[in-house]
């Protein structure tokens, strides 16, 4: 069980963050990923596996300023 954006979910397979983002159609140049209350640098997306108990927040930026 992992928590993603506040929702508990069970991932069917052992996913990396990069795989999760791709499967859920995130545009990785518009997001910030926080894993267990720490920033996850982009270069770690493909080598970080989501594991039981993880909490991930994905902040998606929209245009405007």
């Amino acid at each position, binding site marked *: 069980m992992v928590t993603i954006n506040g929702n508990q979910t069970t991932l069917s397979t052992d996913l990396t963050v990069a795989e999760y983002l791709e499967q859920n159609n995130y545009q990785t140049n518009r997001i910030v990923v926080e894993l267990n209350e720490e920033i996850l640098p982009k270069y770690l997306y493909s080598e970080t596996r989501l594991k039981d108990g993880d909490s991930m927040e994905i902040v998606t*930026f*929209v245009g405007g300023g």
Partner: protein
Amino acid sequence: MNEKLTKEEIMAALNERHSPEKQALLSEGRVAIAGLGGLGSNVAYALARIGVGHLHLIDFDVVDITNLNRQQYFMEHLGMYKTDALKSLLLKINPYLDIQTDCVKVTEENIVDLLRDDSIICEAFDRPEAKAMLVNGVLEHFPEKKLVSATGMAGYGSNNTIRTKRLMKNFYLCGDGVTEPEYGNGLMAPRVAICAAHEANMITRLILGEEEI
């Protein structure tokens, strides 16, 4: 009256409004504002007016006619770099502020050198890719700095969906989170200013030692 006020006169007025204790903290404040559009120009005005002593203005762009619907510029600034135009405006409010400018596009390559000396960073860009790049860069390279960012402030939707959230210890995010500009619901002065005021007040709170939202 058109003569310039002395530094002592301006400080006395700020001390009268804010108290000498608070003003001393504000005068020591050191804030970078990345992006000088609807968010950044309004944030800069607010911080300059309360005498935040050290402002670092960053933008690569020039003032365009479509900026006048929400940004703190005037017709005479069309075609000028926003860094130069905004600095000249802020110095009309308080000529004794320390205002540094960098007329440059922030990139992953220059972000560390650009923001090294600033203790609080205001993300005020327009494009989502630029916002994400800045926030990722600051959180990765400068986790000890305070970062105040914004997303979702287009249109004329409710005032009250604009919020300030604390997403991490040093990362604050203002806005409604979802409303991007589209036809008939573009970026407009009132609601962008609400969001800018959220950023500016959170920055003020941080300068004065309040970390809660």
